[in-house]
């Protein structure tokens, strides 16, 4: 029997993506096990966000295959979406709703049964009480990012996909995010996170994917083996 940890939650094989003549991703392959924290890093424009958007089905790919929860992304992604929490580069929230209203809307879309209790839990974990009742348009970028990050954890996901969750966050908010990711990891949640801040995340990462010029130039679990 396969060890639970060895079950591949996410498999990306020979992924290619171009916009016109410009190659964005070239032959990207990696695997992610249950409960693993995988960090995608690299400089701006290296293809991190495109890779995250393709894995989240927000963007199509030209070649290659992606399997999430051992089901094909192209065929059965609808089925597994409820197990995934998404935090993209933009907030994915309505400006004229408060943080609370945005989180409640998300809870409704995910069909969360204990909406109030679940919301309170998330608000407490991410320390959002003070900003929760303010409309998004009156919050700073950092405060918006805090709520957007919390939204990714709202549906108690088995896999959390985050794109630059630490951008615009102050030190305290970064610590909260860091703490919650470690907590989720302990609970067996898998986390796929794209960030150019390698130093921040490398110590808790099980796997680091280093991207440069549209390709994965390094896949390692050891800081010493990182090639820049």
């Amino acid at each position, binding site marked *: 029997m396969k060890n639970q940890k060895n079950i591949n939650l996410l498999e990306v094989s020979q992924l290619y993506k171009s916009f016109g003549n410009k190659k964005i991703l070239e032959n990207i392959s990696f695997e992610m096990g249950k409960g693993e924290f995988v960090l995608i890093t690299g400089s701006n424009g290296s293809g991190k966000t495109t890779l995250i958007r393709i894995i989240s089905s927000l963007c199509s790919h030209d070649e290659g295959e992606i399997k999430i929860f051992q089901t094909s992304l192209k065929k059965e992604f609808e089925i597994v979406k*409820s197990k995934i929490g998404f935090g993209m580069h*933009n907030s*994915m929230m309505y400006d*004229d*709703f408060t943080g609370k209203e945005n989180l409640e*809307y998300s809870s409704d*879309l995910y069909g969360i049964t204990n909406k109030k209790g679940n919301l309170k839990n998330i608000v407490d974990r991410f320390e959002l009480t003070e900003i929760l009742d303010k409309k998004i348009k009156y919050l700073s970028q950092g405060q918006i990012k805090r709520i957007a990050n919390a*939204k990714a954890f709202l549906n108690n996901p088995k896999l959390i996909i985050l794109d630059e969750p630490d951008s615009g966050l102050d030190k305290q908010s970064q610590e909260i995010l860091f703490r919650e990711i470690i907590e989720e990891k302990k609970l067996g949640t898998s986390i796929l996170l794209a960030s150019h801040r390698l130093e921040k995340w490398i110590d808790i990462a099980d796997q680091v994917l280093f991207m440069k010029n549209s390709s994965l130039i390094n896949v390692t679990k050891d800081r010493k083996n990182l090639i820049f």
Partner: protein
Amino acid sequence: MNPFKTIWNIAKRDLILELRRKEVLFTILGFSTLVLSIFVFSIDVNTKETQKIVPAIYWSAIIFSFTIALGRRFSIEIENGAFEALILSPISKDIIFFGKFTSNFILVLISSVFALPITSILFNINILKIEYLLLAIIISFGLSTLGTFFAIMSIKVRAREVMLSLVFFPAVTPLLFAGVDCMDKIIQNNNFSDIQSWIFFVLFYDAIFFLISLLLFDHILQE
């Protein structure tokens, strides 16, 4: 998850958002009132010939104002990627379509009905009849179906408002013809049987495009 509850959740949020922003409803109501008022000042409203062009003025005002409002409405959806949150949530694409369609339908119906008494007062004709309400409902249904479909289709296009007008106007032209002719016949106090064929045509057109939109909606959400 109860699909009807989810559809209502999407539509309800859209309507709450609209009540707060007051952009779409004000655009439709304001623009249609303006168009109707301009015509009143430029033509003699008491001649029979003028009364014949009232339906064309009314429906043109509704369709033009709805197009402007649609562009604005879906700009809000893409501003912070809020529409992406819908796509990423574990609900089927059909439910997203139904939800967006419902809110658009309510907005365009409110505007169409609101413009009726204004038209009636400005042009001095009695169009406050049940037949008009029926006509407004079935044509609003078609406008909302095509509007929702094309607005979402043009979401990723750079010149989205131009693109929306280019595809939306030709598609709603048959509805416009039906609306104008039916309204003209109702003004002339014709029987329901005189407009029956148009009513069936609009119902058929609504049903066909609703099904096509539903079938293609998943496809247009793919890049």
